[in-house]
């Protein structure tokens, strides 16, 4: 018998040994089903002989399938966040090569309001902002981000948003979350930011009526301005088809180099290079309880936040250099 033959046989035996746990799993699964167990329960029992990682994965899937998971009152599912962690990690490290600075400015406990620039109809900037805090912060926490209402009309996306900490952009929600001492991220540009054309990238739009400042003043939450560079190149909006947008109930219908020409592939964001900078918090506690009614103060603070973000955007654009390389 030649050496190659022996090798071959060894390899086959090795493969069989490798597959044994899987076959055992299927056998036990079948036995469980025959004994009248539900699929999740049978799968969980059958997983006993599998190697550690696979066993845990099957058991977790079986448990979730049977409803054994928690969502908090706002719909955030921590286990789900952990499950999608590798995907976000890939986006963060490989796809967008995010560099984050100043994350210490995010308070590790108590209420705070993060205000960032915004672009693109899918809230990737919100998820990356959230992920940056979980990855880089010494005491990570889940920020809740206020998402453009329209995203909550969409199937699947609305559920995913809610499970990773997105809530409907309603002042009531922001107010209540801050009262509960949560970390809240807002995009004060709102729909104007999401719909701005490519040539106006990184030029901050008007900050609405300054509602976010009013809420911060009322709840006495410090405002942390955040500059996100990179998010405004992922869906370069070259044109708009408002008629189609109205038909779909969307605020606008973007035309990008890939969307809608490539169909669902057009929803894949471009791999621009990102920088996220958290700026020094703007203290709110010095103002009295009635400060929120002071229109001029609200506008002044809103303008200050806007200028801070704008300036940091320019700085980071220079630091980043080329947009995609």
């Amino acid at each position, binding site marked *: 018998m030649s050496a190659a033959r022996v090798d071959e046989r060894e390899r086959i035996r090795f493969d069989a040994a490798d597959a044994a746990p899987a076959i055992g799993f299927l056998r036990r699964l079948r036995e469980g089903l025959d004994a009248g167990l*539900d699929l999740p329960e049978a799968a969980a029992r059958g997983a006993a002989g599998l190697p550690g990682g696979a066993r845990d994965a099957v058991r977790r899937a079986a448990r*979730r*399938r*049977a*409803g054994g*998971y928690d*969502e908090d*009152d*706002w*719909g955030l599912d921590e286990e789900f966040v952990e499950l999608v962690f590798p995907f976000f990690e890939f986006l963060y490290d490989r796809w967008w090569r995010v560099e984050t600075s100043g994350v210490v400015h995010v308070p590790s406990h108590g209420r705070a309001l993060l205000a960032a620039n915004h672009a693109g109809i899918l809230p990737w900037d919100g998820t990356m902002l959230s992920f940056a805090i979980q990855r880089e912060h010494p005491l990570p926490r889940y920020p809740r981000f206020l998402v453009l*209402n329209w995203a*909550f*009309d*969409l*199937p*699947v996306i*609305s*559920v995913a948003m*809610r499970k990773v900490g997105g*809530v*409907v952009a*309603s002042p*009531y*929600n922001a107010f*209540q979350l801050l009262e509960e001492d949560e970390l809240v991220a807002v995009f004060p540009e709102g729909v104007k930011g999401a719909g701005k054309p490519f040539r106006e990238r990184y030029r901050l739009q008007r900050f609405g009526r300054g509602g976010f400042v009013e809420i911060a003043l009322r709840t006495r939450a410090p405002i942390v301005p955040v500059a996100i560079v990179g998010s405004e190149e992922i869906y370069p909006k070259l044109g708009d088809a408002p008629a189609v947008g109205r038909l779909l109930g969307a605020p606008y219908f973007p035309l990008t180099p890939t969307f809608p020409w490539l169909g669902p592939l057009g929803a894949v964001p471009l791999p621009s290079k990102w920088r996220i900078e958290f700026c020094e918090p703007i203290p709110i506690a010095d103002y009295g309880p009635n400060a929120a009614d002071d229109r001029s103060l609200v506008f002044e603070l809103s303008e200050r936040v806007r200028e801070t973000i704008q300036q940091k955007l320019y700085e980071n654009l220079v630091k980043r250099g080329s947009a995609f390389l």
Partner: protein
Amino acid sequence: MAGRRVLITGVGSYLGGALARRLERDPEFEYVAGLDTRRPQVSLESTELIDADIRNAVIARLIPPAEVDTVVHNQIVRRPGPGISPQAMHDINVIGSLQLLAACEKADSVRSIVIRGSAGVYGAEPHAPQFFREEMTRLFPMRTRFQRDVAEIENYFETYSRRHPGAVCTMLRYQPGIGSSQDTQITRYLSLPVVPTYLGFDPRLQFVHEHDALEALVAAVRNPVRGAVNVAAPGTIGLTRMVRLAGRPTLPIVPPLFDGVTGVGKRLGLLDLSDDFTRLLRYGRATDTTRLVEEVGCRPRFTTVEAVRDYLRAQGGRRLLPVLRHAVAP
């Protein structure tokens, strides 16, 4: 001080009967009357039953002589069912409330009216705040008939309480009830052999356990507060999670076809989902219960998740056989 005198409408419903039984055993209440055309589901000892239809003007003659100080309006129908067409439901809800108010106008003894209304008045909306507070009723347009009816009823009682500053109207806005003694939309839904859902949607739902539903009524009778109060179990549960806990197979349907598919099911007599409930299955709704706890003084014993679990436990855990089997058994 003499004991209190209470009239309960809709005493033939589960909650109406349970409330009557509870109050007649309480020494604080010397007289309890129940108005309904149906027989109560529980045996009542001293409750005086008034057999009259709430839609009929005759109640304006029957109620004043009872000299009650408190009226509990518990006859608001939440869903059309066997024997109750949508039209009859509208009549009972709107005309019935008007007749009851007309009767209250004639009875000078009335000091407080407690209404078991519905949180359906908020609607179910994708852009809704995560927790509705009592003042947030007019954020969205009215979309279903039931919602408009509830809003109309709320209006009547508001007007009444403006005109009679001496009487306190408490509008309890109930989230859908869940519990093993009750037959509600949600218990019916969870008993379906296959549960239809909207593909790609997983709304946050909120319920009230039947135990807490009764406690809230009792607390509001004891301690009437002016205006609206949400009645719900704290917290929410995702629809998917609830259906999984119930061990039910689901039938996810793409949204544009949902009405068509459930419509076929309805024609075959398999299921009957109201418009409000259908919207709830897509967008969900949750309310803030601070006012119930702090002002009415009723602290719900069950959270929403516990209420669902308790109901499922009472059903014998996972019921794998469809309910239809029960009908076949002798």
